């Protein structure tokens, strides 16, 4: 006799396993794609040795990191040193629980309603993502502090200041979207963008969120510690920043966390601003040809296309831009991004209010 709790648990675990697999595979693809795209943009080839055109390079990297010696530096705080990579990795993976990958369908299995394309449709979804994204900063800071190394400590401190400054901008940039859709649930926000491409929140009337989108993208680049805001791991100044002393699997965890974080913020950006799994046209082509039960493939593909485009933007920025100076970073965050985000909130609120009065 299957209890209701057991069934729910099994379904949830299946969904979690599937999402974890997708995310880890995406990270594997990203590590190769980043080196390839970066190489192509700089007239190089990228990895070419392992497998045809180097496509097996991520596996070679993973095996190498797995068998590397695990070094704990002398004088390091062992507990926190061990905890930090996990503390960095887990909040990032937890955030994927509320991302809607596909259509908002509901199945009934033995009287239990199941949403196959989102693990948990909680009504504060985006708040939950932001909260855990902030927790990931603890992993970086504690890792930097526990390493007993000046480079790590400086990297961790920089990361603290940077993540706090830019987390604020991320939070303020998405407020416009929340005003437009009137919900914090990512599923509801995505559903509010159904229809043509101009219903996406980046273009949506009465208040197009294009500035919010730009602020969001710039801020998440800073929040994920990517070039040109990679001051916490500035290799020309701080060896490798907060993970200078990390090796082997612990380094792999930090690496995985950074790339998973990139995937997460790209997913959130495509769900908030770019219509999530909605195609740029109403409905799906699969429904037009009478395969409406297979239309989820098209929807998830659209979601993947949007997410991967944003990830390509990360690589593109990395290939193009040099690192900012620290004061430039802070001035840009507080004096440019923050006022734009605040003004966007005010403009969006006024526009939405006026349109509600007119209707």
């Amino acid at each position: 006799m299957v209890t209701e709790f057991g069934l729910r648990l099994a379904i949830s675990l299946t969904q979690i396993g599937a999402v974890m697999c997708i995310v880890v595979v995406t990270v594997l693809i990203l590590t190769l794609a980043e080196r390839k795209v970066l190489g192509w943009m700089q007239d190089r080839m990228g990895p070419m040795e392992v497998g045809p055109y180097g496509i097996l390079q991520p596996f070679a990297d993973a095996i190498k990191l797995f068998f590397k010696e695990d070094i704990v530096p002398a004088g390091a705080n062992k507990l926190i040193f061990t905890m930090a990579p996990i503390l960095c990795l887990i909040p990032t993976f937890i955030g994927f629980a509320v991302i809607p990958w596909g259509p908002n369908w509901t199945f009934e299995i033995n009287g239990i309603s199941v949403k196959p394309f989102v693990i948990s449709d909680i009504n504060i979804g985006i708040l939950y993502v932001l909260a855990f994204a902030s927790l990931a900063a603890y992993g970086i800071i504690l890792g930097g502090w526990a390493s007993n190394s000046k480079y790590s400590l400086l990297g961790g401190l920089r990361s603290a200041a940077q993540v706090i400054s830019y987390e604020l901008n991320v939070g303020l940039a998405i407020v416009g979207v929340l005003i437009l859709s009137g919900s914090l649930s990512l599923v509801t926000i995505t559903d509010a963008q159904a229809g043509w491409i101009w219903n996406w929140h980046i273009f949506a009337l009465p208040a197009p969120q294009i500035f919010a989108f730009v602020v969001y993208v710039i801020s998440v680049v800073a929040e994920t510690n990517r070039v040109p805001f990679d001051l916490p791991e500035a290799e020309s100044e701080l060896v490798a920043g907060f993970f200078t002393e990390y090796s082997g699997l612990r380094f792999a965890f930090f690496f995985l966390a950074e790339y998973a974080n990139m995937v997460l913020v790209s997913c959130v950006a495509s769900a908030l601003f770019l219509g999530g799994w909605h195609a740029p046209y109403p409905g799906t082509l699969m429904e037009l040809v009478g395969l409406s039960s297979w239309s989820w493939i098209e929807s998830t593909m659209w979601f993947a296309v949007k997410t991967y485009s944003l990830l390509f933007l990360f690589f593109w920025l990395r290939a193009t831009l040099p690192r900012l100076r620290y004061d430039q970073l802070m001035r840009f965050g507080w004096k440019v991004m923050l006022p734009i985000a605040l003004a966007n909130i005010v403009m969006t609120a006024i526009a939405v209010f006026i349109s509600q009065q007119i209707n």
Partner: protein
Amino acid sequence: MRSTSSTKRLSLSEWFKTITFYEILVGMKATLSHLLNYRPVTLQYPHEKRTLPDNYRGMLALLRYDDGTEKCVGCDLCEAACPSRVIRVVSAEVPDEPTKRYSKEYYMDMTRCLFCGMCVDACPVDALGMTREFEWAVYDKRQLHLNKQQLLAIGDRSFPVREKRLELQHPNVAFFNVAFNHVPPKPN
């Protein structure tokens, strides 16, 4: 619009370029054009090798004449010419022929060689040659301390076509260090 003390007042077009990230977009266009017109400059080295120039100065080698005798006459000029003191020559008389000398031992410490080619220029009998070999990475540095047999072996595999003995070449070629009683008379 007040300008801060650190930044000077911007003109309208400059201001517009700033707020639209114009410079960054120009840079991104440049990187994207390199991505789309993908022409890598990489040479996949172990799989494909560049063509070496004709005057490439690679590994040094000792040469032989076409009858298999060593060219080296043990004159020590290469040792004198070498700026890095790579070469050590132990010269000796040929036992039966007191007028003729040869190098009894010949050592090259290739860890110090800088491939300037001065020894090759200095050699009066062209006994030294520079091959086109350059893949001489070894695990043990002592393997780069070469003796005469090794240097002759390098010459044998790199210069399969050998010169005739000097006295058998063109009559006007100057030669020396030859026991004259064995030399055929010059054709007139």
